Structure formats: structure tokens, C-alpha cells
């Protein structure tokens, strides 16, 4: 009779199966619950400055008084240039920088994505440090038009004024680069790529450079002569990378404690530090991180290991450009103090209020537990006797299985049974499930390539065609397999293909959790139905429920959800994804199409096969 190793496991198989099922459910529930606990005082921490050299707010900031008049003059200048072409703007900005006695460089760039062309001209000036050796630099950046395409009058005027003002100080030990980028999305990327000589062919090289960039502060202050109420700190980078927490802490401490400016995060304008507001701030941060897109000019710097934030003026209040200027000045004095690159504080964190955060050690378990839940399910599916397609009975298998196997044995009586000295028991047929899973994963390249190469105009129609294909494709595959494979191999094949697919998904997600926690967590959350949606040829209603659940948690549903969240059309989201891939090197589309979509398709194949098997009568 069949040889059984390891004996203990096999003897108590049903116990093991239930234990694993229980464990994976517990893992998921604990993972979800622990995320909801994070905003509580017991689990989150108050922020603190780790790098002592920063000394935030320890110096008096002198920007103000007559400097304010200069800012207003530059505002007028920017206002007049408002609708000019980018080369006119760049030339005028260059003139102003030159008159302040700075070295000036200009850079044209052009990107192509989603059938559109994104061109512009960046202009920047380098202030050589009187007390430095040009090995390190800090950047003050103002996009000509901000991320909402508003003319950034205040920001640009302030940058121009600060360039004159900073020039007068003799205390700088790092070069200061003043960058006026043509827009908030492509311009900074072109500039920072060229700064590191990693730019594409349609992007000019930089004529003037300085040392390694230690920090970047972006000023976003659109609108004409209005006074603002609070400072919005934006910190999400491309692919969910974040700047060092010390930079944010420094900005928060300076603006709140020194300048008396309220700071906001993640567009939470009325944060009262309650549980609800903390949770919402955290979740908004996670959504931005998961999408991995650029949230401002600072985002492009972060992949280069440059810590960067955007300070955006918000609302209608009594603060003027003087307050913002003093904040930037004080922040630059702190950055100027840095002895080495930001490294002391956290790179992985979730902020839930300007002064409250959780670090990776506290939040990572929740994403890991979701991934572990998937992996445990995969292991359970593997040890489950249903994964074996043999002629013999498995003694300790569940009763229903016994009857199934008996019938199989009858069917296969005609076949000559191979006589071997020792039979290793019913075997797992790996070839078919392996090829299903690997084949589907390779198919994931197709939507990825298509959506990154087509025009914006055709995106919506192609997307709907693709949804239709994705809905039909799994059914077709399951029909094909059901009709071609022999009946006793069918259930194990679907069973094992789920097992491999969940194993891959669990593996990808736990890897992704170390790179982009939020994306991993959200995909894990959407993939939960995959852990229980199985082939149930004997229960069509259950299969129907599973099928609907899978549809509701498909990548398309998520895409519609994201589109709804921002009030955009799906084609805009796809355009953003295509733009992100070509300009920023954003990985989110790769993850969605080559990791999540294949796993979902394999899940659909398993569920759809229940209908097909019921119809064709191959369910027994």
C-alpha cells in the first residue's frame, strides 16, 4: 500500500487542514484589526527629532520687512508673464537670477506618454556656498504651475526673493540651488534625472551642477496676493517611497512652534487629533502611497534618495509670504546644519497627525499577516488530499473524497496499472496547474504593454474591451481545460492552480510590503476572496456568490473605485498610469497587471470551472 511520509501529518490530516484554515483566517483578521488599532495612543508614537544637528527653530529668521516688498514686486513680474510660453518665462527668470549674481542654467525637456507630449523648460540658479566646497547642495524649488495647473505666483516670487536674500548671508556651508520648474510633474523629474546624468534623449543635460543634493523644499503658493491659513506638508514620493521623517518633523516644528503656522497633512484641513481623523489621515496617506504617483514636485527627488517635501499654502487666513519665507529660511538653516545625509530617523512610517506616527515595526505585521494568510492557504491546499489525482483511495481523507475516489477507481479499472516495487501513493499532477499559473502570469504583460502604448483617446474603449475579455477569458480557459483533461484530474488541477497562484501572490505581496507597504496591503485586502473562492461543482449558488465576490474585488473594480475617489474617468487614471510609467518610472501598473490581475484570473478560472463542470457533468 501507499507509503506515507511523514506519518504523523498524514494521520491527522483533517486536523492539520483545519488548523491551517483557522490560522489563515486568524492571520487575516489580526492583520486587519492591527491596522485599525494603529491610530490609538498606545500603538502610535509622538514624533521627535532624531538628528541633533538639525536644531530646528533655534535660529532667528530675518526674512520680512522690506523683503516683503521685493516678493510683491516679483509677484507682479510673475503675474505679467502668466500666460507666456515656457522659453520666455525661462529667459526672464534667468535674467532675474543673473542680476542677483547667481550662476544660471536652463534645461528643455520633452516627454511622450499616452499619446501626448509634455514639454517645458526648467530654469535654475546655483548659489555657491561661501563656507562650503560644492560637494553638497540643497534645493529650493518652485514649479511655475503647481500640480493643479495653477500659476504658482507666490512660490516663484518667494523663490526669486529668497535667492537674493540668501545670497547676502555668509553662513551657508552647502550650495543652494533655486529651481523653477516648468510644471509640477514632468519638469522636476527631467531636472533631477539630468542632475544625475540618467536622462533620456529628449531631455537636455544640465550646464551647471553642484554637489550631492541633501534635501529639497518645494514652495507651492498659488493665487494672487492672498493670505493663507495653514501650511500643507506633502511628502509622498514615487512608488510610495517617503522622505526621512526628520525632514517632516523639522518642517512641522519650525512652522508650528516657531512661526505659529498650523500644519496639515493629506488634505485633512480640520484635524482635531481624534481617532477618526488620525485614521483618515493614515488611510489617505496609504492610498497615495499605494498609487505610487507623484503628489508634487518633491516626489521625483525621493527615488534618488534625496529627502524632499512640498510646503503648500492653503486656505484663507492671516499669514503672508513673510511667514512662509521665514519658515523656508529657518528650514534651510536647519538643512545647512546637516553633518551627513538624513539617516537617523525613519524612512518607513505612516503619519496620522502632524506630530504622531507609527514606524515600520508596528505596522508591517498587518501587511505581512495578509500575505502570510495567502501563503498559509497555499500550504493548506497543497497538503489537502484533494490536490492528488490518483487511482487509489486515500485512507484518511474526508468521507466525501472517499466516494469520489472510489468512482474514479472504477473508471480507471480498464487502464493497465503499472506494477512497481513501491508505489508512492496518489500523485499530484503538477504540469497542468503549473502551466495555467505561469501562462496567466505571462499574459499579464499584454494589458501592461497595451495600456502603456496606446493614446489617451482610445484608452476608454480599449479598457472596456479589455474588461470584457477578462470576464470571458477565465470562462473560456476553464471550458477548454474541462473539455480536454480527464475528469479525475480536473478538481486537483484547479485545486493546485489555486495553490500555486496564492503562493505566488503571497510571495509577491510580502516582497512588496517591504518596498511599498500600502500597495501590498490594499492588494492583499482585495485578494481576500481568492483564499476561499474555490471550485464547487456541487454547489452552484456558492459558486455564483464567489463569482460575484471576485468580480467586486477585481482590479477593474479597484480602478473604478480609485476613479470615483477622485471624481475622474477611468481613462484619466490609465493616462496617469501610463504617464507615471514613462516619466516617473512608476511600478504600480506592473504590480497590478503582472501580479494582481493574473492571480485574479486564476481565481476566476477555479470558480468558473464549477459551472462548466456542472453543465458538462464532469463534476463527479
Amino acid at each position, binding site marked *: 500500500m501507499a507509503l506515507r*511520509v511523514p506519518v504523523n501529518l498524514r494521520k491527522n490530516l483533517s486536523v492539520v487542514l483545519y488548523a491551517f484554515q483557522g490560522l489563515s483566517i486568524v492571520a487575516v483578521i489580526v492583520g486587519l484589526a492591527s491596522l485599525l488599532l494603529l491610530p490609538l495612543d498606545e500603538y502610535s508614537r509622538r514624533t521627535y527629532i532624531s538628528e541633533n544637528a538639525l536644531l530646528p527653530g533655534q535660529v532667528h529668521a530675518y526674512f520680512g520687512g522690506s523683503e516683503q516688498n521685493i516678493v510683491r514686486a516679483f509677484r507682479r513680474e510673475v503675474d505679467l508673464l502668466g500666460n507666456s510660453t515656457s522659453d520666455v518665462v525661462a529667459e526672464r527668470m534667468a535674467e532675474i537670477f543673473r542680476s542677483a549674481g547667481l550662476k544660471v542654467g536652463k534645461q528643455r525637456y520633452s516627454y511622450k506618454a499616452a499619446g501626448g507630449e509634455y514639454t517645458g523648460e526648467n530654469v535654475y540658479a546655483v548659489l555657491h556656498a561661501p563656507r562650503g566646497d560644492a560637494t553638497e547642495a540643497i534645493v529650493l524649488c518652485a514649479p511655475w504651475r503647481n500640480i493643479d495647473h495653477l500659476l504658482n505666483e507666490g512660490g516663484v516670487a518667494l523663490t526669486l526673493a529668497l535667492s537674493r536674500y540668501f545670497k547676502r548671508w555668509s553662513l551657508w556651508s552647502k550650495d543652494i540651488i533655486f529651481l523653477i520648474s516648468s510644471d509640477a510633474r514632468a519638469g522636476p523629474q527631467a531636472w533631477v534625472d539630468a542632475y544625475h546624468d540618467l536622462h533620456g534623449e529628449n531631455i537636455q543635460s544640465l550646464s551647471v551642477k553642484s554637489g550631492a543634493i541633501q534635501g529639497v523644499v518645494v514652495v507651492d503658493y498659488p493665487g494672487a496676493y492672498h493670505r493663507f491659513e495653514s501650511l500643507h506638508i506633502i511628502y509622498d514620493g514615487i512608488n510610495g517611497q517617503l522622505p526621512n521623517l526628520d525632514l517632516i518633523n523639522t518642517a512641522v516644528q519650525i512652522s508650528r512652534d516657531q512661526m505659529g503656522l498650523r500644519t496639515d497633512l493629506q488634505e485633512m484641513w480640520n484635524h482635531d487629533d481624534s481617532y477618526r481623523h488620525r485614521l483618515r489621515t493614515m488611510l489617505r496617506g496609504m492610498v497615495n502611497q499605494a498609487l505610487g504617483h507623484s503628489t508634487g514636485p518633491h516626489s521625483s527627488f525621493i527615488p534618488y534618495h534625496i529627502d524632499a517635501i512640498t510646503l503648500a499654502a492653503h486656505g484663507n487666513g492671516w499669514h503672508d509670504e513673510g511667514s512662509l519665507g521665514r519658515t523656508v529660511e529657518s528650514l534651510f538653516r536647519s538643512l545647512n546644519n546637516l553633518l551627513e545625509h538624513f*539617516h537617523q530617523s525613519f524612512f518607513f512610517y505612516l503619519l496620522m497627525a502632524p506630530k504622531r506616527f507609527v514606524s515600520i515595526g508596528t505596522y508591517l505585521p498587518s501587511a505581512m499577516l495578509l500575505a502570510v494568510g495567502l501563503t498559509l492557504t497555499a500550504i493548506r491546499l497543497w497538503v489537502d488530499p484533494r490536490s492528488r489525482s490518483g487511482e487509489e483511495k486515500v485512507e484518511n481523507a474526508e468521507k466525501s473524497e472517499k466516494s469520489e475516489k472510489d468512482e474514479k477507481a472504477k473508471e480507471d479499472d480498464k487502464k493497465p496499472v503499472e506494477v512497481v516495487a*513501491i508505489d*508512492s501513493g496518489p500523485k499530484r499532477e503538477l504540469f497542468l496547474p503549473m502551466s495555467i499559473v505561469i501562462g496567466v502570469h505571462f499574459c499579464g504583460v499584454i494589458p501592461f504593454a497595451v495600456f502603456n502604448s496606446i493614446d489617451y483617446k482610445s484608452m476608454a474603449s480599449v479598457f472596456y474591451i479589455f474588461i470584457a475579455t477578462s470576464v470571458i477569458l477565465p470562462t473560456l480557459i476553464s471550458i477548454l481545460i474541462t473539455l480536454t483533461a480527464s475528469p479525475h484530474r480536473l478538481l486537483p488541477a484547479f485545486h493546485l492552480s489555486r495553490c500555486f497562484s496564492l503562493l505566488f501572490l503571497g*510571495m509577491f505581496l510580502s516582497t512588496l510590503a*517591504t*518596498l511599498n507597504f500600502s500597495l501590498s496591503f490594499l492588494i492583499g485586502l482585495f485578494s481576500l476572496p481568492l483564499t476561499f473562492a474555490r471550485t464547487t461543482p456541487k454547489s452552484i449558488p456558492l459558486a455564483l456568490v464567489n463569482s460575484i465576490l471576485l468580480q467586486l474585488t477585481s482590479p477593474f473594480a479597484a480602478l473604478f473605485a480609485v476613479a470615483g475617489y477622485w471624481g475622474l474617468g477611468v481613462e484619466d487614471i490609465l493616462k496617469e498610469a501610463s504617464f507615471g510609467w514613462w516619466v516617473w518610472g512608476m511600478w504600480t501598473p506592473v504590480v497590478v497587471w503582472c501580479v494582481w490581475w493574473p492571480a485574479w484570473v486564476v481565481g476566476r478560472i477555479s470558480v468558473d470551472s464549477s459551472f462548466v463542470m456542472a453543465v458538462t457533468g464532469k463534476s463527479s
Partner: protein
Amino acid sequence: MDRKCLLVIGAGILIRLVLFTAFPSLPTILAQRVEISTPVTSYKRLQEGIYLFTHGVSPYDGGVFHQAPLLLSLFSILPPSTIVTNLLYVLADVFSAISLIQIASSGVPTVTPHHVSPRKANTWPPWAIAAAFLFNPFTIATCIARPTIVFTNTIILHAVAAAVNGRRGPAFVSMAMASYLSLYPVLLLPPLLFLTYDSLKANSKPSIQAFSAVTMIILSVVLMIYFKLSHLITGSWEFVASTYGVHLLLPDLTPNVGLWWYFFIEMFDSFRAFFLCLFQLHLLIYVPSVCLRLRKQPLFALITLVGISSIFKSYPAIGDTGLYLSLLMLYNHTFPLMRYTFFLAAAILYATFLGPAFYYLWVYAGSGNANFFYAITLVWSIFNALIVADAVYAVLREEHETERPELIGKDVVQI
């Protein structure tokens, strides 16, 4: 070789050629991966060595190049075109696959003079073994990245293929070449000796002492020829310190998937010599024990030693693991006796994905540090070691069951 073998080899060639031509930047990207290229095998360093060599400078000046001189002469004879080099690497993999097919067809994995596997009917056909080698992602990645480990692997496989057919001369000339190229295959000589001896025809068998004495003479003569040739090519004995010295003394601490680099970064200099000896001896002690315990199946002893050296040698890469896993497939009939197949395969997959991610966090994103990558190389090594241990368990269990059939299916405790 039947049609299926040819088909598998054809597909293996095709997939490599497609990867080489469709993604022209892929070889360069992969060649920079520390998991694939080590200081002693890297293609980039080989190019540096060839450049110095063809310009009349000693290739070992500058301390970048650590590979054997005969490789230099091979590559300087070849026309300096990428296509020819790529084809050479594809060809090497094809030869490896052919050797594997020969080993599998010889039946030695299941039938030796001392042991006949009761599961010999369950073994995979030769084409499946070749497919497991040619479509192994580790092998493919290694072939595309073009480290010289590819040639060492081909030669090792050729030596084993010659040995299972009882051809002593080719077996030992090849294994001497493999040892000459990358030192550690020297550990495989004892099991290779047993393997060749067992494969001799029973009527013309000399005694094992006489056989090994003659073999040792052949081996030393061949090795002397290789060394003299190298001396003639480079004009000095400098190469000995720059190649074998590097394998033994670990002057280059570039990260790799092994256990040495981090350990010797942290090491105080005064302990360095002691631990170097210890680490090298650690590899050596497995040879007699494995050879004696697995005397009935010398091929498996050899495979086990390949596995052990792929974990514990000074500059391991995934190419070594690829070789071990491909060779292990010859013993697929014992897989049902292994206890943790799925678990180990999943763990290896996890480590394969997490390794590059952690390396990225350390080197590019700057948000991690060296401990991240080292942790994952530890995981990788532990699970490779568990695979070796589990495979040995399965083979020993089978031997045990052949000796005592009444114990089939009973619990055993491994101590």
C-alpha cells in the same frame, strides 16, 4: 537522444537567444547583480582582464581580475563580438543539458552495483531532466549574465557524464579543468573516483587502490599541464595568488548570496586567519563523511557535495544552486520520501524575490542597510542546506528500506 530531448534543447536555445536579442540591455543588468556575478566569475571583470591581457599588461595587475588564464586565451582567440560570446554561453548550456541527458540515460541514479532503487520505474525521462536544467530560472539568469561559472558547470557535468559511462580519462581531465577554473570542484574528486570505479565493467576491474593511484597520477599530470600552460600564457606565476588565493583568502568582500562576506566584514583582523582556515576546513570535512556514508550511490555523494559547496564556498552564486538543483532532479524518484518539498520550494522562491528587494532597499533606496540583504542570504543558505539535508534523508531512507523492507512506512528518527 530522442526527439523530445532535441525539442527541449531546441526550446532551451530559443529562450536564451530570444532573451539575448529581444532585451539587449538584459545581459548588462543581470551581470551587475551580485546574486549572479561574483568577483571570481564576473563577466565584467573578465572583459577587464582580456583588455589588459591583449594590451600586453599583466591581467592580474590592479586586483580586479581573478579568473584562470586559460579563460583569457579562450576569449582572446574568439572574435570580439557579443553575438559570438553569447552563442558560446548558450552552447555551454546545451552541452550541460546533453551531459545531463547522458547521466540520466545511463541509469546510474537508480541502479549502482551496490544499490538498486525500488522506485526506478518512477524516475523522470531524460528529456524532463534536461528541461529542468534548461528552464530553471537560475540557470537561465546565469547564462544571460555570462559569468564564467557557466563553463565550470558545463565541465563538471561533462566529467560526471564521462564518469557514469566508466570513461576515466575524460572524466578526470574535465574535473581537473573544473578545479583549475574555480578551485572548489576539487572537492568532487573523491566521489568522482568512486563513481568512475563503480561504472567500470565488472570483468576488467582493477583493485580500488591501484585504480585511485593511477587516477591520481593522471590527475596531477593534467593539472601540471594546465598550470604550465597558464604560466606560458601569462608569463608569470602571479595568477596562482590572484585566482586561488582569492578563493582561499577572500580579499574581495563584495556581497553575494553566500555567508562569508558579511562575516568577514565584521571580523576583527586578528581572527581573520583563524576563521578563514575554519571556513575552508568546514567545507573539506564533508568530503570524507559524505563519500563514506553514500558509498553505495557515489553520484548522489557528488551531488550532495555540489550542494554543500554551493552554500558554503567563498563566492557562491545562484549558478551554483542552479547546478545543484538540476543534478538533484536525477534523484526525483526519491522526492516522495522528502518531507518538506513544497515548504522548501516556497521558501526558496520567497528568498529569491526578497533578496533583490532587500538589496534594492540597501543600495538604491538607502532606507535599508547591509543587514537586510545579509538576513535574506542567511534564509537562502538555510533553506538550501535544508534541501540538501532533506534530499540526503530521502536517499538514505530509500537505502534503509531496501535493506529492511519490513520498515517501509514506519517512523524513523534522523539523528
